[in-house]
Protein backbone atom coordinates (compact mmCIF):
# COMPACT_ATOMS: atom_id res chain seq x y z
CA UNK A 1 0.00 0.00 0.00
CA UNK A 2 3.02 2.30 0.51
CA UNK A 3 3.45 3.01 -3.22
CA UNK A 4 -0.08 4.31 -3.92
CA UNK A 5 0.05 6.39 -0.70
CA UNK A 6 3.35 7.91 -1.82
CA UNK A 7 1.94 8.75 -5.24
CA UNK A 8 -1.21 10.19 -3.68
CA UNK A 9 0.80 12.34 -1.22
CA UNK A 10 2.96 13.61 -4.08
CA UNK A 11 -0.08 14.44 -6.21
CA UNK A 12 -1.74 16.31 -3.34
CA UNK A 13 1.39 18.41 -2.83
CA UNK A 14 1.64 19.14 -6.56
CA UNK A 15 -2.05 20.08 -6.82
CA UNK A 16 -1.60 22.33 -3.78
CA UNK A 17 0.87 24.32 -5.88
CA UNK A 18 4.07 23.06 -4.24
CA UNK A 19 6.98 23.19 -6.73
CA UNK A 20 7.24 19.74 -8.33
CA UNK A 21 10.89 19.17 -7.35
CA UNK A 22 10.19 20.13 -3.73
CA UNK A 23 7.14 17.86 -3.63
CA UNK A 24 9.17 14.89 -4.84
CA UNK A 25 11.98 15.61 -2.39
CA UNK A 26 9.75 15.99 0.66
CA UNK A 27 7.63 12.93 -0.22
CA UNK A 28 10.80 10.86 -0.60
CA UNK A 29 12.30 11.98 2.71
CA UNK A 30 9.06 11.37 4.63
CA UNK A 31 8.82 7.90 3.05
CA UNK A 32 12.43 7.13 4.01
CA UNK A 33 11.71 8.09 7.62
CA UNK A 34 8.48 6.03 7.72
CA UNK A 35 10.17 3.01 6.13
CA UNK A 36 13.10 3.33 8.53
CA UNK A 37 15.68 3.80 5.77
CA UNK A 38 18.63 6.18 6.42
CA UNK A 39 17.70 9.61 5.03
CA UNK A 40 21.21 9.97 3.59
CA UNK A 41 19.94 7.69 0.78
CA UNK A 42 17.87 10.65 -0.47
CA UNK A 43 20.84 12.86 -1.34
CA UNK A 44 23.12 9.98 -2.31
CA UNK A 45 20.60 8.87 -4.97
CA UNK A 46 19.92 12.41 -6.15
CA UNK A 47 23.60 13.40 -6.45
CA UNK A 48 24.46 10.10 -8.16
CA UNK A 49 21.76 10.72 -10.78
CA UNK A 50 23.16 14.17 -11.60
CA UNK A 51 26.73 12.84 -11.63
CA UNK A 52 26.09 11.70 -15.19
CA UNK A 53 27.91 12.52 -18.41
CA UNK A 54 24.81 11.97 -20.55
CA UNK A 55 22.79 14.58 -18.64
CA UNK A 56 25.45 17.19 -19.44
CA UNK A 57 23.72 17.34 -22.81
CA UNK A 58 20.87 19.29 -21.20
CA UNK A 59 22.72 22.60 -20.67
CA UNK A 60 24.61 22.13 -23.94
CA UNK A 61 21.46 21.84 -26.05
CA UNK A 62 19.65 24.52 -24.04
CA UNK A 63 22.47 27.00 -24.74
CA UNK A 64 22.71 25.94 -28.39
CA UNK A 65 18.94 26.38 -28.87
CA UNK A 66 18.99 29.86 -27.36
CA UNK A 67 22.03 30.84 -29.47
CA UNK A 68 20.16 29.83 -32.63
CA UNK A 69 17.46 32.40 -32.03
CA UNK A 70 19.75 35.11 -30.64
CA UNK A 71 22.22 34.62 -33.48
CA UNK A 72 19.73 34.72 -36.37
CA UNK A 73 20.01 31.07 -37.44
CA UNK A 74 16.31 30.34 -36.74
CA UNK A 75 15.16 33.15 -39.03
CA UNK A 76 17.22 31.80 -41.90
CA UNK A 77 15.84 28.29 -41.38
CA UNK A 78 12.29 29.64 -41.72
CA UNK A 79 13.25 31.44 -44.96
CA UNK A 80 14.59 28.16 -46.31
CA UNK A 81 11.33 26.34 -45.54
CA UNK A 82 9.40 29.19 -47.17
CA UNK A 83 11.39 28.84 -50.40
CA UNK A 84 10.50 25.12 -50.52
CA UNK A 85 6.78 25.25 -49.68
CA UNK A 86 5.63 28.88 -49.97
CA UNK A 87 4.60 28.47 -53.64
CA UNK A 88 1.64 26.18 -52.81
CA UNK A 89 -1.90 27.36 -52.27
CA UNK A 90 -2.18 27.21 -48.48
CA UNK A 91 1.57 26.84 -48.47
CA UNK A 92 2.34 28.94 -45.40
CA UNK A 93 0.80 26.29 -43.13
CA UNK A 94 3.11 23.76 -44.77
CA UNK A 95 6.00 26.22 -44.39
CA UNK A 96 5.13 26.43 -40.70
CA UNK A 97 5.36 22.65 -40.25
CA UNK A 98 8.45 22.45 -42.50
CA UNK A 99 10.16 25.15 -40.42
CA UNK A 100 9.35 23.19 -37.27
CA UNK A 101 10.84 20.03 -38.77
CA UNK A 102 14.05 21.90 -39.61
CA UNK A 103 14.05 23.76 -36.29
CA UNK A 104 13.43 20.52 -34.39
CA UNK A 105 16.69 19.27 -35.84
CA UNK A 106 18.60 22.09 -34.24
CA UNK A 107 16.67 22.73 -31.01
CA UNK A 108 15.39 20.33 -28.37
CA UNK A 109 12.51 22.33 -26.98
CA UNK A 110 8.91 22.63 -28.22
CA UNK A 111 8.39 26.05 -26.66
CA UNK A 112 11.54 27.42 -28.27
CA UNK A 113 10.10 26.15 -31.57
CA UNK A 114 6.72 27.79 -30.91
CA UNK A 115 8.32 31.13 -30.08
CA UNK A 116 10.86 31.09 -32.91
CA UNK A 117 8.61 29.80 -35.72
CA UNK A 118 5.36 31.33 -34.43
CA UNK A 119 6.96 34.73 -33.84
CA UNK A 120 7.82 35.00 -37.54
CA UNK A 121 5.17 32.93 -39.31
CA UNK A 122 1.96 33.62 -37.36
CA UNK A 123 1.95 37.36 -38.25
CA UNK A 124 2.89 36.44 -41.82
CA UNK A 125 0.06 33.89 -42.04
CA UNK A 126 -2.43 36.42 -40.68
CA UNK A 127 -1.31 39.00 -43.25
CA UNK A 128 -1.67 36.39 -46.03
CA UNK A 129 -5.32 35.78 -45.03
CA UNK A 130 -5.15 32.64 -42.90
CA UNK A 131 -7.47 32.43 -39.88
CA UNK A 132 -5.48 33.48 -36.76
CA UNK A 133 -6.75 30.43 -34.85
CA UNK A 134 -5.51 28.15 -37.62
CA UNK A 135 -2.09 29.87 -37.59
CA UNK A 136 -1.88 29.34 -33.82
CA UNK A 137 -3.04 25.72 -34.04
CA UNK A 138 -0.62 24.69 -36.79
CA UNK A 139 2.26 26.42 -34.97
CA UNK A 140 1.52 24.69 -31.66
CA UNK A 141 0.94 21.26 -33.20
CA UNK A 142 4.09 21.36 -35.33
CA UNK A 143 6.17 22.63 -32.38
CA UNK A 144 5.67 19.26 -30.70
CA UNK A 145 8.16 17.92 -33.27
CA UNK A 146 10.89 19.73 -31.31
CA UNK A 147 11.30 17.08 -28.60
CA UNK A 148 10.72 14.15 -31.01
CA UNK A 149 13.26 14.90 -33.75
CA UNK A 150 16.78 15.00 -32.21
CA UNK A 151 18.10 16.77 -30.22
CA UNK A 152 15.48 16.51 -27.48
CA UNK A 153 15.55 17.68 -23.88
CA UNK A 154 12.72 15.24 -23.05
CA UNK A 155 14.73 12.29 -24.41
CA UNK A 156 17.80 13.33 -22.41
CA UNK A 157 15.72 13.46 -19.23
CA UNK A 158 14.06 10.14 -20.12
CA UNK A 159 17.51 8.61 -20.60
CA UNK A 160 18.62 10.14 -17.31
CA UNK A 161 15.73 8.57 -15.40
CA UNK A 162 15.79 5.14 -17.01
CA UNK A 163 19.39 4.62 -18.16
CA UNK A 164 18.30 4.07 -21.79
CA UNK A 165 20.98 5.35 -24.22
CA UNK A 166 20.27 9.00 -25.08
CA UNK A 167 22.03 8.56 -28.44
CA UNK A 168 19.70 5.69 -29.36
CA UNK A 169 16.67 7.68 -28.21
CA UNK A 170 17.78 10.58 -30.41
CA UNK A 171 18.18 8.36 -33.47
CA UNK A 172 14.89 6.59 -32.71
CA UNK A 173 13.00 9.90 -32.85
CA UNK A 174 13.96 10.69 -36.44
CA UNK A 175 11.46 8.54 -38.40
CA UNK A 176 8.44 9.03 -36.07
CA UNK A 177 9.20 12.78 -36.08
CA UNK A 178 9.39 12.96 -39.85
CA UNK A 179 6.25 10.82 -40.14
CA UNK A 180 4.36 13.13 -37.79
CA UNK A 181 5.74 16.14 -39.68
CA UNK A 182 4.46 14.73 -42.96
CA UNK A 183 0.96 14.03 -41.59
CA UNK A 184 0.80 17.52 -40.05
CA UNK A 185 1.94 19.06 -43.35
CA UNK A 186 -0.84 17.25 -45.22
CA UNK A 187 -3.43 18.42 -42.70
CA UNK A 188 -2.08 22.00 -42.77
CA UNK A 189 -2.20 22.04 -46.56
CA UNK A 190 -5.69 20.47 -46.68
CA UNK A 191 -7.19 23.05 -44.30
CA UNK A 192 -5.04 25.98 -45.41
CA UNK A 193 -5.61 25.66 -49.16
CA UNK A 194 -9.12 27.15 -48.77
CA UNK A 195 -7.86 30.13 -46.80
CA UNK A 196 -5.03 31.78 -48.73
CA UNK A 197 -3.03 31.63 -51.92
CA UNK A 198 0.70 31.17 -52.47
CA UNK A 199 3.18 33.70 -51.06
CA UNK A 200 6.13 32.99 -53.36
CA UNK A 201 6.76 31.35 -56.68
CA UNK A 202 8.63 28.10 -56.98
CA UNK A 203 12.02 29.01 -58.37
CA UNK A 204 15.40 27.42 -58.16
CA UNK A 205 16.91 30.89 -57.66
CA UNK A 206 14.77 31.45 -54.53
CA UNK A 207 15.63 28.04 -53.14
CA UNK A 208 19.35 28.44 -53.80
CA UNK A 209 19.40 31.91 -52.29
CA UNK A 210 17.59 30.72 -49.12
CA UNK A 211 19.74 27.60 -48.99
CA UNK A 212 22.90 29.71 -49.16
CA UNK A 213 21.65 31.72 -46.18
CA UNK A 214 20.33 28.78 -44.19
CA UNK A 215 22.85 26.08 -45.07
CA UNK A 216 24.92 26.67 -41.94
CA UNK A 217 21.82 25.99 -39.80
CA UNK A 218 21.03 22.83 -41.73
CA UNK A 219 24.47 21.45 -40.88
CA UNK A 220 23.43 21.17 -37.22
CA UNK A 221 21.13 18.12 -37.57
CA UNK A 222 23.73 16.59 -39.88
CA UNK A 223 26.35 16.98 -37.13
CA UNK A 224 24.07 15.52 -34.45
CA UNK A 225 22.54 12.63 -36.39
CA UNK A 226 25.64 11.76 -38.40
CA UNK A 227 27.89 11.97 -35.37
CA UNK A 228 25.73 9.71 -33.23
CA UNK A 229 24.66 7.29 -35.96
CA UNK A 230 28.23 6.67 -37.14
CA UNK A 231 29.62 6.46 -33.62
CA UNK A 232 31.82 9.56 -34.00
CA UNK A 233 30.63 11.02 -30.70
CA UNK A 234 28.02 10.62 -27.97
CA UNK A 235 24.85 12.71 -27.64
CA UNK A 236 26.57 14.86 -24.99
CA UNK A 237 29.58 15.48 -27.18
CA UNK A 238 27.24 16.28 -30.07
CA UNK A 239 25.68 18.88 -27.76
CA UNK A 240 28.95 20.64 -27.06
CA UNK A 241 29.98 20.55 -30.74
CA UNK A 242 26.62 22.07 -31.76
CA UNK A 243 26.98 24.70 -29.05
CA UNK A 244 30.44 25.72 -30.28
CA UNK A 245 29.24 25.63 -33.89
CA UNK A 246 26.17 27.80 -33.15
CA UNK A 247 28.34 30.30 -31.27
CA UNK A 248 30.92 30.58 -34.04
CA UNK A 249 28.30 30.88 -36.80
CA UNK A 250 26.28 33.50 -34.87
CA UNK A 251 29.32 35.48 -33.76
CA UNK A 252 31.78 35.27 -36.64
CA UNK A 253 29.71 34.59 -39.76
CA UNK A 254 26.27 36.11 -39.21
CA UNK A 255 27.67 38.67 -36.71
CA UNK A 256 24.28 38.96 -34.96
CA UNK A 257 25.31 37.84 -31.47
CA UNK A 258 26.44 40.64 -29.18
CA UNK A 259 28.33 40.13 -25.93
CA UNK A 260 25.19 41.15 -24.02
CA UNK A 261 23.08 38.63 -25.97
CA UNK A 262 25.58 35.92 -25.07
CA UNK A 263 25.50 36.79 -21.36
CA UNK A 264 21.68 36.67 -21.45
CA UNK A 265 21.77 33.28 -23.22
CA UNK A 266 24.17 31.86 -20.64
CA UNK A 267 22.19 33.06 -17.61
CA UNK A 268 18.84 31.92 -19.05
CA UNK A 269 20.33 28.55 -19.95
CA UNK A 270 21.88 28.14 -16.51
CA UNK A 271 18.56 28.87 -14.81
CA UNK A 272 16.60 26.57 -17.10
CA UNK A 273 19.17 23.80 -16.65
CA UNK A 274 18.97 24.30 -12.87
CA UNK A 275 15.19 23.86 -13.00
CA UNK A 276 15.49 20.67 -15.06
CA UNK A 277 18.38 19.19 -13.09
CA UNK A 278 16.71 19.65 -9.70
CA UNK A 279 13.69 17.78 -11.05
CA UNK A 280 15.89 15.00 -12.44
CA UNK A 281 17.80 14.74 -9.14
CA UNK A 282 14.64 14.55 -7.05
CA UNK A 283 12.98 12.18 -9.52
CA UNK A 284 15.86 9.73 -9.09
CA UNK A 285 15.33 9.31 -5.35
CA UNK A 286 11.53 9.43 -5.77
CA UNK A 287 11.68 6.68 -8.42
CA UNK A 288 13.95 4.63 -6.17
CA UNK A 289 11.58 4.83 -3.20
CA UNK A 290 8.62 3.97 -5.48
CA UNK A 291 10.51 0.91 -6.71
CA UNK A 292 11.42 0.00 -3.11
CA UNK A 293 7.70 0.14 -2.27
CA UNK A 294 6.98 -2.23 -5.18
CA UNK A 295 4.80 0.32 -6.98
CA UNK A 296 5.74 -0.68 -10.56
CA UNK A 297 4.89 -4.31 -9.74
CA UNK A 298 1.51 -3.27 -8.34
CA UNK A 299 0.86 -1.22 -11.49
CA UNK A 300 1.69 -4.22 -13.67
CA UNK A 301 -0.75 -6.35 -11.68
CA UNK A 302 -3.54 -3.78 -12.05
CA UNK A 303 -3.02 -3.44 -15.79
CA UNK A 304 -2.67 -7.17 -16.41
CA UNK A 305 -5.98 -7.79 -14.66
CA UNK A 306 -7.54 -5.74 -17.48
CA UNK A 307 -5.58 -7.61 -20.17
CA UNK A 308 -2.35 -9.54 -20.48
CA UNK A 309 -2.06 -8.79 -24.20
CA UNK A 310 0.96 -6.44 -24.62
CA UNK A 311 -0.77 -4.52 -27.43
CA UNK A 312 -3.83 -3.85 -25.30
CA UNK A 313 -1.60 -2.81 -22.37
CA UNK A 314 0.29 -0.44 -24.70
CA UNK A 315 -3.02 1.10 -25.83
CA UNK A 316 -4.16 1.43 -22.21
CA UNK A 317 -0.90 3.20 -21.39
CA UNK A 318 -1.50 5.62 -24.29
CA UNK A 319 -5.00 6.41 -23.05
CA UNK A 320 -3.66 6.91 -19.50
CA UNK A 321 -0.90 9.23 -20.74
CA UNK A 322 -3.29 11.21 -22.92
CA UNK A 323 -5.37 11.93 -19.82
CA UNK A 324 -2.31 12.71 -17.63
CA UNK A 325 -0.82 14.91 -20.36
CA UNK A 326 -3.99 17.00 -20.50
CA UNK A 327 -3.67 17.99 -16.86
CA UNK A 328 0.04 17.90 -16.04
CA UNK A 329 2.92 19.73 -17.75
CA UNK A 330 4.96 17.42 -20.03
CA UNK A 331 8.20 17.13 -18.04
CA UNK A 332 6.32 16.81 -14.77
CA UNK A 333 4.07 14.15 -16.28
CA UNK A 334 7.10 12.26 -17.53
CA UNK A 335 8.85 12.47 -14.16
CA UNK A 336 5.74 11.14 -12.42
CA UNK A 337 4.84 8.37 -14.84
CA UNK A 338 8.13 7.04 -16.23
CA UNK A 339 9.45 5.54 -12.97
CA UNK A 340 6.26 3.47 -12.83
CA UNK A 341 5.75 2.80 -16.54
CA UNK A 342 9.33 1.91 -17.48
CA UNK A 343 9.43 -1.25 -15.31
CA UNK A 344 5.94 -2.06 -16.60
CA UNK A 345 7.30 -1.90 -20.16
CA UNK A 346 10.17 -4.21 -19.22
CA UNK A 347 7.72 -6.63 -17.62
CA UNK A 348 5.51 -6.65 -20.72
CA UNK A 349 8.50 -7.17 -23.03
CA UNK A 350 8.27 -3.79 -24.82
CA UNK A 351 11.41 -2.55 -26.53
CA UNK A 352 12.64 0.21 -24.15
CA UNK A 353 13.37 2.66 -26.98
CA UNK A 354 10.04 2.05 -28.70
CA UNK A 355 8.18 2.44 -25.41
CA UNK A 356 10.09 5.67 -24.69
CA UNK A 357 9.03 7.19 -27.99
CA UNK A 358 5.39 6.22 -27.43
CA UNK A 359 5.47 7.82 -23.97
CA UNK A 360 7.14 11.04 -25.16
CA UNK A 361 4.91 11.45 -28.23
CA UNK A 362 1.72 10.78 -26.26
CA UNK A 363 2.58 13.20 -23.48
CA UNK A 364 3.41 15.91 -26.01
CA UNK A 365 -0.19 15.86 -27.26
CA UNK A 366 -1.12 17.38 -23.92
CA UNK A 367 0.78 20.55 -24.89
CA UNK A 368 -1.89 21.33 -27.51
CA UNK A 369 -5.01 20.17 -25.68
CA UNK A 370 -7.01 21.97 -22.99
CA UNK A 371 -6.92 22.62 -20.10
CA UNK A 372 -3.08 22.80 -19.96
CA UNK A 373 -2.11 23.17 -23.63
CA UNK A 374 0.98 25.29 -22.97
CA UNK A 375 2.07 25.50 -26.61
CA UNK A 376 -1.42 26.34 -27.79
CA UNK A 377 -1.64 29.14 -25.21
CA UNK A 378 1.73 30.57 -26.31
CA UNK A 379 0.76 30.37 -30.00
CA UNK A 380 -2.70 31.86 -29.32
CA UNK A 381 -0.96 34.70 -27.47
CA UNK A 382 1.29 35.40 -30.47
CA UNK A 383 -1.71 35.20 -32.84
CA UNK A 384 -3.79 37.41 -30.50
CA UNK A 385 -6.72 35.02 -30.78
CA UNK A 386 -8.99 33.54 -28.11
CA UNK A 387 -7.96 30.23 -26.57
CA UNK A 388 -11.39 28.79 -27.47
CA UNK A 389 -10.83 29.62 -31.13
CA UNK A 390 -7.32 28.14 -31.11
CA UNK A 391 -8.63 24.97 -29.43
CA UNK A 392 -11.36 24.58 -32.07
CA UNK A 393 -8.82 25.00 -34.90
CA UNK A 394 -6.42 22.55 -33.27
CA UNK A 395 -8.86 19.61 -33.24
CA UNK A 396 -7.86 18.19 -36.67
CA UNK A 397 -4.18 18.40 -35.72
CA UNK A 398 -4.78 16.67 -32.39
CA UNK A 399 -6.62 13.87 -34.23
CA UNK A 400 -3.64 13.50 -36.60
CA UNK A 401 -1.23 13.43 -33.65
CA UNK A 402 -3.21 10.76 -31.78
CA UNK A 403 -3.50 8.65 -34.94
CA UNK A 404 0.27 8.96 -35.46
CA UNK A 405 0.95 7.83 -31.89
CA UNK A 406 -1.19 4.74 -32.46
CA UNK A 407 0.67 3.97 -35.71
CA UNK A 408 4.03 4.37 -33.93
CA UNK A 409 2.79 2.16 -31.08
CA UNK A 410 1.61 -0.57 -33.43
CA UNK A 411 4.60 -0.45 -35.81
CA UNK A 412 7.69 -0.66 -33.56
CA UNK A 413 10.03 -0.91 -36.58
CA UNK A 414 9.30 2.75 -37.29
CA UNK A 415 11.19 3.51 -34.09
CA UNK A 416 13.67 0.68 -33.72
CA UNK A 417 14.99 0.34 -37.28
CA UNK A 418 17.33 3.36 -37.31
CA UNK A 419 18.86 2.69 -33.86
CA UNK A 420 19.56 -0.88 -35.01
CA UNK A 421 21.90 0.59 -37.66
CA UNK A 422 23.95 2.45 -35.06
CA UNK A 423 27.65 1.59 -35.04
Amino acid at each position, binding site marked *: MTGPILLLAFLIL*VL*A*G*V*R*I*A*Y*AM*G*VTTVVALILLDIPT*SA*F*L*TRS*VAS*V*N*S*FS*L*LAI*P*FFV*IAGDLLTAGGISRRIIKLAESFFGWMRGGLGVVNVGSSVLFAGVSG*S*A*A*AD*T*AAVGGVLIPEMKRAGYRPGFAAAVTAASATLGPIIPPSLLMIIYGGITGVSVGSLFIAGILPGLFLGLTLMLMAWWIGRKQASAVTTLSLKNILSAARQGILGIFIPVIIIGGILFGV*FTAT*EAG*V*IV*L*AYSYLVSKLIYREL*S*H*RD*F*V*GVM*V*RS*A*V*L*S*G*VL*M*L*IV*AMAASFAWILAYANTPRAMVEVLTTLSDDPTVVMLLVIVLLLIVGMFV*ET*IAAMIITVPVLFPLGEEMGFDPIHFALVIVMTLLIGTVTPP*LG*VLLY*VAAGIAKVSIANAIKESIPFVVVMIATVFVVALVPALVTWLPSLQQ
Partner: protein
Amino acid sequence: MDNLFQRSWLVFIRMQATTVVLILLAIVLVTLANVLLRFLGPGSLTWADEFARVSFVMFSFLAAALACGFGAHLVVDGIVNKATGIIRTVIHAFQALVAGVFFLTIIVIGYTQALDNLGQRTPAIYFPVGVMYGVVAFSGVLMLINSLMATTLGAVSVHAGRLVLGEPEELLEEVA
Protein backbone atom coordinates in the same frame (compact mmCIF):
# COMPACT_ATOMS: atom_id res chain seq x y z
CA MET B 1 15.19 51.81 1.65
CA ASP B 2 13.32 49.48 -0.63
CA ASN B 3 15.70 50.36 -3.44
CA LEU B 4 18.73 49.60 -1.28
CA PHE B 5 17.31 46.17 -0.45
CA GLN B 6 16.45 45.54 -4.08
CA ARG B 7 19.89 46.66 -5.27
CA SER B 8 21.60 44.42 -2.70
CA TRP B 9 19.37 41.54 -3.80
CA LEU B 10 20.33 42.08 -7.42
CA VAL B 11 24.05 42.23 -6.53
CA PHE B 12 23.67 38.99 -4.57
CA ILE B 13 21.91 37.22 -7.43
CA ARG B 14 24.45 38.59 -9.98
CA MET B 15 27.27 37.07 -7.91
CA GLN B 16 25.51 33.71 -7.99
CA ALA B 17 24.75 33.99 -11.71
CA THR B 18 28.40 34.82 -12.45
CA THR B 19 29.59 31.80 -10.44
CA VAL B 20 27.12 29.44 -12.10
CA VAL B 21 27.88 30.71 -15.62
CA LEU B 22 31.64 30.39 -15.00
CA ILE B 23 31.23 26.77 -13.88
CA LEU B 24 29.07 26.10 -16.95
CA LEU B 25 31.67 27.69 -19.25
CA ALA B 26 34.40 25.57 -17.65
CA ILE B 27 32.34 22.41 -18.28
CA VAL B 28 31.72 23.46 -21.90
CA LEU B 29 35.38 24.27 -22.58
CA VAL B 30 36.76 21.10 -20.99
CA THR B 31 34.24 18.84 -22.76
CA LEU B 32 34.86 20.59 -26.07
CA ALA B 33 38.64 20.36 -25.63
CA ASN B 34 38.29 16.67 -24.82
CA VAL B 35 36.37 15.97 -28.06
CA LEU B 36 38.67 18.10 -30.22
CA LEU B 37 41.84 16.60 -28.74
CA ARG B 38 40.51 13.13 -29.41
CA PHE B 39 40.27 13.85 -33.14
CA LEU B 40 42.85 16.56 -33.70
CA GLY B 41 45.33 16.13 -30.87
CA PRO B 42 47.24 13.47 -29.00
CA GLY B 43 44.10 11.87 -27.47
CA SER B 44 41.36 12.36 -24.85
CA LEU B 45 42.01 14.09 -21.55
CA THR B 46 41.75 11.33 -18.94
CA TRP B 47 40.39 13.69 -16.31
CA ALA B 48 37.90 15.61 -18.50
CA ASP B 49 34.91 13.30 -17.99
CA GLU B 50 35.23 13.31 -14.22
CA PHE B 51 35.93 17.05 -14.07
CA ALA B 52 32.79 17.70 -16.12
CA ARG B 53 30.63 15.41 -13.97
CA VAL B 54 31.81 16.73 -10.61
CA SER B 55 31.45 20.33 -11.82
CA PHE B 56 28.03 19.46 -13.22
CA VAL B 57 26.77 18.22 -9.84
CA MET B 58 27.82 21.50 -8.21
CA PHE B 59 26.50 23.52 -11.15
CA SER B 60 23.12 21.74 -11.04
CA PHE B 61 22.43 22.49 -7.39
CA LEU B 62 23.80 26.06 -7.53
CA ALA B 63 21.80 26.74 -10.71
CA ALA B 64 18.71 25.28 -9.03
CA ALA B 65 19.29 27.74 -6.18
CA LEU B 66 19.66 30.57 -8.69
CA ALA B 67 16.39 29.47 -10.31
CA CYS B 68 14.66 30.04 -6.94
CA GLY B 69 15.56 33.71 -7.29
CA PHE B 70 13.91 33.74 -10.71
CA GLY B 71 10.79 31.99 -9.37
CA ALA B 72 11.42 29.52 -12.18
CA HIS B 73 10.91 26.09 -10.63
CA LEU B 74 8.08 24.13 -12.21
CA VAL B 75 4.70 24.33 -10.53
CA VAL B 76 1.17 23.21 -11.39
CA ASP B 77 -0.80 26.20 -10.13
CA GLY B 78 -3.98 26.03 -12.21
CA ILE B 79 -6.14 24.88 -9.29
CA VAL B 80 -4.50 26.98 -6.58
CA ASN B 81 -4.86 30.16 -8.63
CA LYS B 82 -8.63 29.75 -8.45
CA ALA B 83 -8.58 29.88 -4.63
CA THR B 84 -9.42 33.16 -2.93
CA GLY B 85 -9.41 34.72 0.55
CA ILE B 86 -8.42 32.66 3.55
CA ILE B 87 -8.09 29.43 1.54
CA ARG B 88 -5.51 31.07 -0.71
CA THR B 89 -3.55 32.31 2.34
CA VAL B 90 -3.60 28.85 3.93
CA ILE B 91 -2.42 27.24 0.67
CA HIS B 92 0.43 29.76 0.33
CA ALA B 93 1.47 29.12 3.94
CA PHE B 94 1.40 25.37 3.26
CA GLN B 95 3.55 25.81 0.12
CA ALA B 96 6.07 27.88 2.08
CA LEU B 97 6.16 25.23 4.82
CA VAL B 98 6.85 22.39 2.37
CA ALA B 99 9.50 24.48 0.58
CA GLY B 100 11.13 25.27 3.94
CA VAL B 101 11.19 21.58 4.88
CA PHE B 102 12.74 20.77 1.50
CA PHE B 103 15.50 23.39 1.83
CA LEU B 104 16.30 22.33 5.41
CA THR B 105 16.46 18.69 4.33
CA ILE B 106 18.99 19.58 1.60
CA ILE B 107 21.03 21.63 4.09
CA VAL B 108 21.04 19.07 6.92
CA ILE B 109 21.57 15.91 4.84
CA GLY B 110 24.05 17.71 2.57
CA TYR B 111 26.05 18.90 5.59
CA THR B 112 26.05 15.43 7.18
CA GLN B 113 27.11 13.82 3.91
CA ALA B 114 29.84 16.44 3.49
CA LEU B 115 31.32 15.55 6.88
CA ASP B 116 30.97 11.80 6.24
CA ASN B 117 32.73 12.00 2.85
CA LEU B 118 35.41 14.59 3.58
CA GLY B 119 38.25 12.06 3.38
CA GLN B 120 37.02 10.44 0.17
CA ARG B 121 38.38 11.71 -3.16
CA THR B 122 37.36 11.14 -6.79
CA PRO B 123 39.73 8.81 -8.68
CA ALA B 124 40.97 11.03 -11.53
CA ILE B 125 41.05 14.61 -10.26
CA TYR B 126 41.26 13.81 -6.52
CA PHE B 127 38.39 16.17 -5.77
CA PRO B 128 37.09 15.77 -2.18
CA VAL B 129 33.60 14.20 -2.36
CA GLY B 130 32.79 15.97 0.92
CA VAL B 131 33.27 19.36 -0.77
CA MET B 132 30.80 18.33 -3.47
CA TYR B 133 28.18 17.54 -0.82
CA GLY B 134 29.18 20.76 0.98
CA VAL B 135 28.26 22.71 -2.16
CA VAL B 136 24.92 20.86 -2.25
CA ALA B 137 24.27 21.87 1.39
CA PHE B 138 25.30 25.45 0.59
CA SER B 139 22.93 25.48 -2.38
CA GLY B 140 20.16 24.58 0.10
CA VAL B 141 21.03 27.75 2.04
CA LEU B 142 20.96 29.78 -1.19
CA MET B 143 17.60 28.22 -2.17
CA LEU B 144 16.16 29.34 1.16
CA ILE B 145 17.53 32.89 0.86
CA ASN B 146 16.66 33.29 -2.83
CA SER B 147 13.11 32.02 -2.34
CA LEU B 148 12.57 34.40 0.58
CA MET B 149 14.02 37.33 -1.37
CA ALA B 150 12.04 36.51 -4.51
CA THR B 151 8.83 36.40 -2.44
CA THR B 152 9.48 39.63 -0.56
CA LEU B 153 11.44 41.77 -3.06
CA GLY B 154 10.33 40.24 -6.36
CA ALA B 155 11.68 37.58 -8.70
CA VAL B 156 14.61 38.33 -10.99
CA SER B 157 14.51 37.94 -14.77
CA VAL B 158 16.85 38.39 -17.73
CA HIS B 159 16.11 41.38 -19.95
CA ALA B 160 18.43 42.30 -22.84
CA GLY B 161 21.30 40.44 -21.26
CA ARG B 162 20.86 42.11 -17.85
CA LEU B 163 19.38 40.82 -14.61
CA VAL B 164 16.40 42.90 -13.56
CA LEU B 165 13.61 42.66 -11.03
CA GLY B 166 10.27 41.72 -12.52
CA GLU B 167 8.19 38.87 -13.82
CA PRO B 168 10.23 35.87 -14.94
CA GLU B 169 10.43 35.48 -18.70
CA GLU B 170 8.73 32.48 -20.23
CA LEU B 171 11.10 30.08 -18.48
CA LEU B 172 8.39 27.67 -17.52
CA GLU B 173 7.07 27.61 -21.04
CA GLU B 174 10.59 27.05 -22.39
CA VAL B 175 10.81 23.87 -20.36
CA ALA B 176 8.15 22.18 -22.47
